[in-house]
C-alpha cells in the first residue's frame, strides 16, 4: 500500500472538463511517446495496486468474520437457551384479545379452564371445600393468584375479604364453590361479593353451587348458580362458559418511576396478586429497607440460607422482616425453594435476592430432610470461606436485632467446642415465661427456628451421615439424637429472636399453632446489648449457675406449683423449686409442670443438666430435677422435691410433634 504514488495520475483528472482541450492535449501526447509509455505503466501499476488492496480487504473481512464465528463453540447449553427463548415468543405471536373461560362448580369437583388450559382442577375427596378464587391478569390472561377459602369453617371469610380487597382493580376474578361455601360466609363477605356485582354470591345458601367471573370494580362477565333443593342434597353442578375481553397492557400496569427497584416491582406485580400494598399504584410499600448497619458486625459475612417450600405469602412476610433486620447483608442471603414453584421465585426476585430451586426428592419428612441437606451443602459451596451459616425457614419473623444477637454471640461457637449451635428460638420463651432480652441460656436441646450451624460440624459430621431419602426422618429430630448431638449444647436467648407464624405446614395446623406458638415472646427492641456473653462458655456457665442457685430463694414446696400464688408477688427475684427426677430421662414431673404452666410439653426442651430456667411473674424461676441433676446438692435437706402425677391415659396429644 505504501508504494502507491498518486502524483503521476493527477493529470488525467482534469481531462473530462473540455473536449477540445482534451483532444489537443491527447494529440500532443501521442507525439510524446515517452510520456505516453509512462502514463500507461502508471495506469497499469495503479490497477495492480487496486487489485491488491481489494484482495487484502476481502481477506481481512473474511478473517474477521471467521474469528467471530469460530471462537466460542456452541454446546448443548446453547440449544437449551434457544429452546427457552421460544415459548414466550410463541405466546406473543398471536395476540388474542378475548379469553374463553370455563368455570365448573359442583359437590365433588371444581375446575377452571382459560383458553382450554385447565388452571384449576380439584376433585380430591375431603379436600378443597369452600370458595375457590382465581385472579387473572386482565391484559395477559395469566393466573396471578389461586386461593381456596373454606368458608364452611369460621374466619375463612375474613381471609377472603382481606384477599379480595388486596386485588388490584381491573383484574379478572373467578369464583367457584366446591361442596359447601356458605356456612360461615358472613355479611361483610357477602357485601363484598355484592359490590363485585354478583347476584347469587350474596345470597349463597347451604350446599349451593356457584360459578362467577367478573372484573374487579368492573362489569360481571358471567355467573351461574344452582340452589340446593334440600338440606341433605347439593345444588346441581353448574358450568359457566364466558368470554373475557382482554385490555391493553398499559391499563393493567401502574405508572411507577423507572428505577431498578420499580422494574422488579413491575415484573412481580404483573405476575402475582395478593401481596397487598407492594403493588399499589399510588403508594406502593418499599421493597428495599436499608436498615442501620451494625457497628463491628461479626456476622456480616456469614451466609444466610432461607429454607422454603411453596408458601410464597409466608416467604414474602419472612423476607420483609429479614431484610429489615439491622446488619443484614442481602448478598449473603440465598433462598432455597423445594420444588419448581414459580411464585416463591417471583417473591425472591422482587427483593433482588438469590433463589435456588430444588427438585423434590422423596416424600414428606424425608423430602424436607433432603431439601435441608442440599441447601446446606449448596450454601457452603457458594460461600466456601464461610465458617458458619445461618439457617432460617420461610415461616419465621426475624427480630430487628437478630444479627446483633448473633454478632455478639457467634464467637462462642468458635471458641467453645462443647456447643452444637446458636439458636434464636427459646422453646419455653412464652409471653408469660420470658422476660430478659439480654439473657442467654445453654440448653441440651436443638431448638432450630433460626439458628447458626458451624461448617466443620456440618462437613465433618452431619453431611456424611445425613439420613438418606428412604428414611422418613425429620432432619431436626435426627439432629437432636444423641449420636449426632454428642452431649453438645446450644445457646439460646431468653426472649426469642424469631417468631414462628406459620399455621399451614407439614406438621402444623391452626389449633396447634394457637396452643404452642401464638403466645411466644418475640423481641422487638433494637440493639439489645447481651449480658455477660462469655459466661455462657462451658466452665463459666457452671460457675454462673452455682451462683444463681446460691442466691435463689427456695419456694414453699407445700404449695401447688401450677398456681400463680406459688410465687410471691415480687419482681426481679430469683426463685428455685426442686422437682422429682429420678434419672436423666425421667421427665414425669417436669412434663406435668410444663403442661400447667402452658409452655412446651410435647417433649423435653430447654433443659441443662436437669435444670430449667424461665420467668414467672417477672421473677427468674429455676427448676431443678432431684436427684438426677448435679445441682441437687443445692437442695436444702428439709425440702421434699415436688412430684406431679401424670393424668390417667387421655386421648392423645394433638397431632404429631411439630417440627421446630
Amino acid at each position, binding site marked *: 500500500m505504501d508504494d502507491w504514488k498518486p502524483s503521476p495520475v493527477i493529470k488525467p483528472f482534469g481531462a473530462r472538463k473540455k473536449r477540445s482541450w482534451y483532444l489537443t492535449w491527447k494529440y500532443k501526447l501521442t507525439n510524446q511517446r515517452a510520456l505516453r509509455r509512462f502514463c500507461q505503466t502508471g495506469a497499469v501499476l495503479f490497477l495492480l495496486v487496486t487489485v491488491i488492496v481489494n484482495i487484502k480487504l476481502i481477506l481481512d473481512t473474511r478473517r474477521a468474520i471467521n474469528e*467471530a464465528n469460530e471462537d466460542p463453540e456452541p454446546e448443548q447449553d446453547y440449544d437449551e437457551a434457544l429452546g427457552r427463548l421460544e415459548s414466550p415468543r410463541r405466546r406473543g405471536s398471536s395476540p388474542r384479545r378475548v379469553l374463553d373461560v370455563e368455570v365448573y362448580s359442583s359437590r365433588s369437583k371444581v375446575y377452571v379452564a382459560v383458553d382450554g388450559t385447565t388452571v384449576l382442577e380439584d376433585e380430591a375427596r375431603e379436600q378443597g371445600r369452600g370458595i375457590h378464587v382465581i385472579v387473572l391478569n386482565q391484559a395477559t390472561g395469566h393466573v396471578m393468584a389461586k386461593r381456596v377459602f373454606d368458608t364452611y369453617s369460621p374466619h375463612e371469610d375474613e381471609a377472603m375479604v382481606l384477599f379480595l380487597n388486596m386485588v388490584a382493580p381491573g383484574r379478572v376474578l373467578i369464583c367457584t364453590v366446591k361442596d359447601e361455601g356458605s356456612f360461615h360466609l358472613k355479611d361483610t363477605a357477602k357485601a363484598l361479593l355484592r359490590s363485585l356485582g354478583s347476584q347469587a354470591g350474596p345470597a349463597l345458601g347451604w350446599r349451593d353451587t356457584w360459578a362467577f367471573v367478573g372484573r374487579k370494580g368492573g362489569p360481571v362477565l358471567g355467573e351461574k348458580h344452582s340452589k340446593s333443593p334440600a338440606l341433605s342434597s347439593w345444588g346441581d353442578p353448574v358450568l359457566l362458559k364466558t368470554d373475557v375481553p382482554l385490555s391493553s397492557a398499559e391499563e393493567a400496569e401502574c405508572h411507577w418511576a423507572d428505577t431498578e427497584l420499580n422494574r422488579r416491582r413491575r415484573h412481580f406485580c404483573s405476575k402475582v396478586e395478593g401481596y397487598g400494598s407492594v403493588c399499589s399504584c399510588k403508594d406502593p410499600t418499599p421493597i428495599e429497607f436499608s436498615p442501620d448497619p451494625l457497628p463491628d458486625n461479626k456476622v456480616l459475612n456469614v451466609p444466610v440460607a432461607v429454607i422454603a417450600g411453596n408458601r410464597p405469602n409466608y416467604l414474602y412476610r419472612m423476607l420483609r422482616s429479614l431484610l429489615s433486620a439491622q446488619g443484614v447483608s442481602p448478598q449473603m442471603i440465598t433462598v432455597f425453594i423445594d420444588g419448581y414453584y414459580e411464585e416463591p421465585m417471583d417473591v425472591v426476585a422482587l427483593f433482588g435476592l438469590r433463589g435456588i430451586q430444588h427438585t423434590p426428592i422423596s416424600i414428606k419428612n424425608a423430602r424436607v430432610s433432603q431439601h435441608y441437606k442440599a441447601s446446606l451443602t*449448596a450454601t457452603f459451596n457458594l460461600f466456601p470461606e464461610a465458617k458458619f451459616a445461618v439457617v432460617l425457614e420461610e415461616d419465621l419473623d426475624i427480630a430487628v436485632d437478630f444479627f446483633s444477637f448473633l454478632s455478639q454471640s457467634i464467637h462462642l461457637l468458635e471458641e467453645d467446642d462443647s456447643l452444637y449451635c446458636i439458636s434464636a428460638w427459646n422453646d419455653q420463651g412464652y409471653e408469660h415465661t420470658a422476660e430478659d432480652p439480654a439473657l442467654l441460656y445453654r440448653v441440651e436441646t436443638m431448638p432450630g427456628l433460626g439458628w447458626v450451624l458451624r461448617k466443620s460440624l456440618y462437613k465433618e459430621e452431619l453431611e456424611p451421615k445425613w439420613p438418606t431419602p428412604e428414611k422418613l426422618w425429620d432432619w431436626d429430630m435426627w439432629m437432636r439424637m444423641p449420636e449426632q448431638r454428642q452431649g453438645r449444647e446450644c445457646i439460646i436467648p431468653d426472649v426469642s429472636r424469631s417468631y414462628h407464624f406459620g399455621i399451614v405446614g407439614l406438621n402444623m395446623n391452626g389449633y396447634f399453632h394457637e396452643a404452642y406458638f401464638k403466645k411466644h415472646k418475640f423481641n422487638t427492641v433494637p440493639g439489645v446489648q447481651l449480658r455477660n456473653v462469655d459466661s455462657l462458655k462451658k466452665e463459666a456457665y457452671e460457675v454462673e449457675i452455682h451462683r444463681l442457685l446460691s442466691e435463689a430463694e427456695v419456694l414453699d414446696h407445700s404449695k401447688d406449683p401450677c398456681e400463680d400464688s406459688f410465687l410471691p408477688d415480687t419482681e426481679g427475684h430469683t426463685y428455685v423449686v426442686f422437682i422429682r427426677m429420678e434419672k436423666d430421662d425421667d421427665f414425669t414431673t417436669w412434663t406435668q409442670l410444663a403442661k400447667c404452666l402452658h409452655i412446651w410439653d410435647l417433649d423435653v426442651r430447654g433443659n441443662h443438666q436437669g435444670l430449667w430456667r424461665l420467668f414467672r411473674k417477672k421473677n427468674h424461676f429455676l427448676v431443678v430435677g432431684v436427684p438426677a441433676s448435679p445441682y441437687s446438692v443445692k437442695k436444702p435437706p428439709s425440702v421434699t422435691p415436688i412430684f406431679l402425677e401424670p393424668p390417667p391415659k387421655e386421648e392423645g396429644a394433638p397431632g404429631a410433634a411439630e417440627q421446630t
Partner: protein
Amino acid sequence: MSRINKNVLLALLTLTSSAFLLFQLYYYKHYLSAKNGTGSSKSKGNRIGFDSTQWRAVKKFITLTSSQNAPVFLIDPWILELISKNLEQVKNASQGSASDCRFLCAPRDFTAFALQYHLWKSEDGWFRIAENMGFQCLKIESKDPRLDGIDSLSGTAIPLHYVCKLATHAIHLVVFHERSGNYLWHGHLRLKGHMDRKFVPFRKLQFGRYPGAFDRPELQQVTIDGLDVLIPKDPGHFLEEVPHSRFIECRYKEARAFLQQYLDDNTVDAMAFRKRAKELLQLAAKTLKELGVPFWLSSGTCLGWYRQCSIIPYSKDVDLGIFIQDYKPDIILAFQNAGLPLKHKFGKVEDSLELSFQGKDDVKLDIFFFYEETDHMWNGGTQAKTGKKFKYLFPKFTLCWTEFVDMKVHVPCETVDYIEANYGKTWKIPVQTWDWKSSPPNVQPNGIWPISEWDEVIQLY
C-alpha cells in the same frame, strides 16, 4: 483511430480505477480504525499519549468501578508484564506525576480486569450506569458450577464475563467466583445464539477460552499512567499462573449416573476411609505446595475423580503423579516432617522412581514419577521380591486444575486418554481386584534390576 481508442480506454480505466482505489482506501482506513484503533493512531503519527482510546476507556472504567464499589483488579497479562518488569519503579513513582503514558497507551483491543464477585455488594443497575457513561456492554452468564455437585439444584445464573466497549477499546471484565478449596474460578466465555459475534474480536481475549482457576491473590494499589488500580501483589506469580490456569469441572452428571447404577458405598468403613484419604491428600498437597512441586491425581485417585467425583472407598491408597524434572531430594524429608514416614522407595531418579509414604490408619500415599519421551510418558514399577521392573505407558498429557474433595488439584487435561491407558476402555465398570503387575493394559515388562543395585533401588521400611 485504434490508437486514440486505446488511449481513451486507458485513460478511462485509470480514472475509474483511481476513483475506486480512493474509495477503497477510505473504506479500508475506516474499517481498520473501527476495528482496533491502530489505523487512527498510525494516521495521527506519533501522537501516542494520554488521550489514547485505551487510556480513556480504562480511566472511565475505573471511575465507574470506584463509584460502584466494584472490587476489581487488573489482570491484563500484557500490562502486568510491563509492570512486573518495573515493579519498584511503579511502586515508588505512585505519587510522582507520570510524564508519559507507558502502560495504557499501546494500541490494543482489550484491557482485562477481574471482578471479585463475592466481595461485591450491589450488583443492581451498574450495567445501566456503565451504558450511561458511554460503554456498550455485553454480559455473559451461565449456571453456577458450584451447584452442579449437588443433586437437582438449579439456581439463578451467575455472571461470568462482562465486555464493555468504549469507542474502539474494550474492557474485558472477568468475573472471579470463590470456590471450595480457597481459589478463584472464572468461567468459559461462550456466546449465546442471539449475541453479536462481531461485538469485539473475541478471539483475541486472553481469558475465557477455557474456564480457569487461580490462587486467591493478595492485592496492592499502584498508580500507572496517572490511574490508581489494584494489581496482584505478586504480578510475576499471577503471570505464571495464567498459561496453566485451565480448569475442568468434575463430570457430576455422569458421576451421578454411575452412582445410580452401582450405588455408593455409604458404610461406616467407606466413609471413614474417605475421610482419612481426604486428610492425607490435603496434607500431601500442602507439603508439595510448600516445596513448590507440582503434582496431579494419578491412577485410582484420578479414576475416582473422573468416574464418581469422589474417592473410591476400596482403593486403599492415594496416588499422585509428579514429573521427574520436578523431583527434589527434600521431598522425603518434608513428608517425614509432616508425619508421613517413607514406606518404600523403588528405583532411582534416573529410572523408575516411585515413593510410598505411610499415612495414618493404614492409608498409603503413592507417588509415581513420570518420565517424558518424545511421543509418550511413562512411570515405572518394581516388584520387591524379584527385582522385576515394569513400565506403564501413557499418551502425552498436560495438566489442568480441577476441584476434588474441597481442594484445587491438578489432573491430566486429557483425562479419558490417561484413564483408558491405565484401566482400559472398561474403566466405567468397578473392579475390586486389581493386580498392578498384570491388570493395567499399559504395563510392559522392563527387565530386571541388577542385583548389585538392589540395595539402592529397592528400599523397604
